[in-house]
């Protein structure tokens, strides 16, 4: 029966090519616009580490100015001071914990012809790789001893290993940075979580850094940090004074496997702050936070406001396109009243007619969906072009989106077809069969 309906639909579509094209175009444009913006939003709000996003917690302590909150909404500062971060790390009260900061440094390759070049890096404690499930190509993470002894070890990204060692297993080799030699202990396999959730303070969709060194090396001022530093109080002269100051520039994540561990850790943080209050620090009211990955992404507004604004606009756009389609379908089906009357008189039931006209609407919807996919693909190219690097990796169609587009097109065209089809089926055959 479906084949018969499809054949009828095809004939009907061919009878009024202009109108059919207009409907396909309207649905296509609506779906195209909606899918473009939905894709961007979907990728921006993706869960970067779904299997343990509820066990990873970002740590915030309110160490800020007693006279003024760090954020207008009263949230604690979004990073920790060096002294608090190192103290919390040393306490080892969580299942796993990592403290980290972004660095920038110059790598000086061996060989007379190779020029030194700038790389982005991260200084982090050993658990970083285990907490965030970083995949390794060669070697692995450094040990906690490497952290505590300030060993000069380094983990390279796959691309930097490619550049420095031609992609070979470089574990045990040396890399010269800022005048010191660092021993390679591991090479990461390709790893690019989107959003780059472990550090959103320097850009949620930036590339993963090219090399990783122990956080403890930051105790000396040799490696230059390039993340954000915020101070509410002058730090005092010299690097040791800076490390000991109230300036926040360190981030901390902890892995807590269940609610009771989380509660215990929060209690520990509160006790730590109470302890510090006795030393004259933390003059603000107790305001410590543990946010899991998705909570933290929301808090940091990782989904750009523009992206959600565009999505609202494009969904309204789709609605206009659907109204358009309803109107055109209605006009089309009603113009077929004589034909419908004739078929009813010849014994076609309402159900049959209903199925037939809905099939026609569905066909138009599917064609519109296909066009919409093409337009969404073009739209995403356009978005990448307009926004440049900041949209890299955020404007790609995947299978979920393709299926969603087709589903949305079919669903919306069927919805749009419902009323016109119903009207067509309520045609009185007797009236239509009278001569006009």
């Amino acid at each position: 029966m479906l084949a018969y309906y499809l054949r009828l639909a095809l004939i009907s579509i061919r009878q009024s090519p202009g109108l059919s094209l207009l409907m396909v175009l309207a649905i296509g444009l609506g779906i195209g616009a909606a899918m473009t913006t939905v894709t961007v939003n979907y990728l921006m709000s993706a869960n970067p580490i779904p299997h343990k996003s509820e066990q990873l917690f970002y740590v915030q302590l309110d160490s800020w100015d007693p006279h003024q909150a760090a954020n207008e909404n009263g949230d604690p500062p979004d990073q920790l001071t060096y002294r608090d971060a190192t103290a919390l790390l040393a306490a080892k009260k969580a299942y796993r914990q990592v403290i980290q900061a972004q660095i920038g440094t110059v790598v000086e390759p061996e060989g007379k012809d190779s020029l030194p070049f700038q790389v982005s890096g991260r200084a982090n404690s050993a658990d970083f790789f285990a907490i965030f499930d970083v995949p390794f190509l060669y070697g692995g993470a450094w040990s906690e001893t490497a952290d505590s002894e300030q060993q000069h070890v380094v983990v390279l990204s796959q691309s930097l290993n490619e550049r420095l060692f031609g992609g070979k297993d470089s574990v045990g080799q040396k890399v010269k940075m800022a005048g010191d030699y660092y021993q390679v202990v591991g090479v990461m396999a390709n790893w690019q979580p989107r959003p780059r959730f472990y550090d959103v303070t320097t850009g949620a969709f930036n590339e993963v850094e090219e090399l990783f060194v122990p956080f403890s090396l930051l105790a000396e001022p040799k490696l230059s940090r390039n993340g954000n530093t915020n101070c509410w109080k002058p730090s005092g002269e010299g690097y040791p004074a800076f490390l000991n100051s109230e300036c926040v520039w360190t981030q901390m994540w902890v892995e807590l496997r269940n609610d009771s561990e989380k509660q215990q850790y929060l209690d520990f943080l509160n006790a730590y702050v109470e302890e510090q209050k006795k030393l004259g620090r933390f003059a603000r009211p107790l305001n410590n936070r543990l946010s899991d990955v998705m909570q933290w992404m929301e808090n940091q507004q990782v989904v750009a406001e523009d992206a959600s604004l565009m999505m609202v606009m494009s969904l309204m756009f789709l609605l206009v396109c659907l109204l358009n389609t309803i109107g055109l379908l209605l006009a089309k089906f009603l113009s077929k009243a004589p034909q419908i009357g004739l078929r009813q008189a010849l014994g076609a039931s309402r159900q049959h007619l209903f199925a037939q006209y809905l099939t026609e609407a569905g066909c138009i919807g599917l064609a519109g969906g296909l066009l919409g996919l093409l337009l969404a693909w073009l739209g995403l190219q356009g978005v990448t072009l307009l926004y440049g690097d900041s949209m890299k990796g955020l404007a790609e169609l995947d299978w979920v989106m393709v299926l969603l587009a087709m589903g949305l097109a079919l669903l919306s065209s069927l919805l749009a077809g419902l009323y016109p089809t119903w009207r067509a089926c309520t045609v009185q055959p007797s009236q239509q069969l009278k001569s006009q």
Partner: protein
Amino acid sequence: MFELGPIFRALLRQKVGAVLIALQIALTLSIMVNAIFMMQNRSTLMARPSGLDEANLFYLSNTVFAQNYPHQAALEDDLRLIRSIPGVVDATQINAIPLSGGGWSMSLQKKAGEGEDGTGVAVYMVDEHGINTLGVELIQGENFQNTDIRWRAASAVDWPERTIISQAMAEALFPGNWQSALGQTVYINNNEPMQITGIIKTLQAPWNGWDGVERSMLVPYQLEGRNNRYMIRTEPGRRDELMPIVEKALAESDKNRIIRGVTSLEETRADSYRSHNALNRILLLVIVVLTLITAFGIVGLAMFSINRRKRQIGTRRALGATQLQVMRYFMLENLLITSLGVLIGVAAAIGLNIWLVSQFELKPLEPMLLLTGVVVLYLVGQLAVLYPARKAAAIAPATATRSV
């Protein structure tokens, strides 16, 4: 008058089609007006002057990797070298680039002491060539002297005795009387005094989204560190030619550092406002396509209603109606439908705006814009119906006599 009565009664007989068009017009109006409003807001933001001679400025970074490097001497050599290149107007070392998004902010207060009210300000560390290099206009007081310039070690915390602030910063510190800021002492880091020795007209902070973007200060500091930035101003029209020349001259003069990120200020502006620009273009596209879709919808429905009424139109023509009267019928019909759409649309536009304001950082709509949108939609409706109406007018009176 104008057969409004018959048109209206005929419309009532096919309500749904008319209501669908009206709804479409209503939605189009509310989207269009709100989109244009967002575009206007962003364009205003982008049109704010930075205060710099943007067309002739570029900058680069200098990253030193050698150990035991003579930073002070090298910096002086570099600046001397850049300034001696023909076509270069002036050059200075600077700690942050306006509009770039990365910089340094401090707070100035009128009274010394912790807990006193402070005003946030963007800090630019420059030497006595700073004002000339940036191309900012000094409207009061005087520039720094060579003897004011101090070296700032990487972890220094004290500040020089003098500063030059922007007019907006002066106004923020001394509301209603910015001129009085000259010669005043303000406090940085709660307790450290600085004297305001000059006021410049405009100099934007590095963060274009900050509400204090016009508040900035110049500080006579030379940074001594591994990462420096040089800002270079060229003679008009020679920037692109000089960018590679300066880069090469610096790179070859000293192999213990990397010169990179040679960027013009115009590129920085484009980057800084990239998302604003992108959204504006997307919104423009949305408006255009939306209007087209609505227009085609009107054409399509009008064509069908005319096809259905062929005999009726023919009868009217046979009874003596002129072609113009037939056209007028359909134009007026569209006017009625559009009026209904516009009525709903104005309410919807305001509603949408209220919702958008509550969800996003937007301002309430201006009535003028709404009025313009209404006029535009009437025009679109009339233009769209013009072709079907002419088709209708062309129907021969004889049609009435033929059987279908």
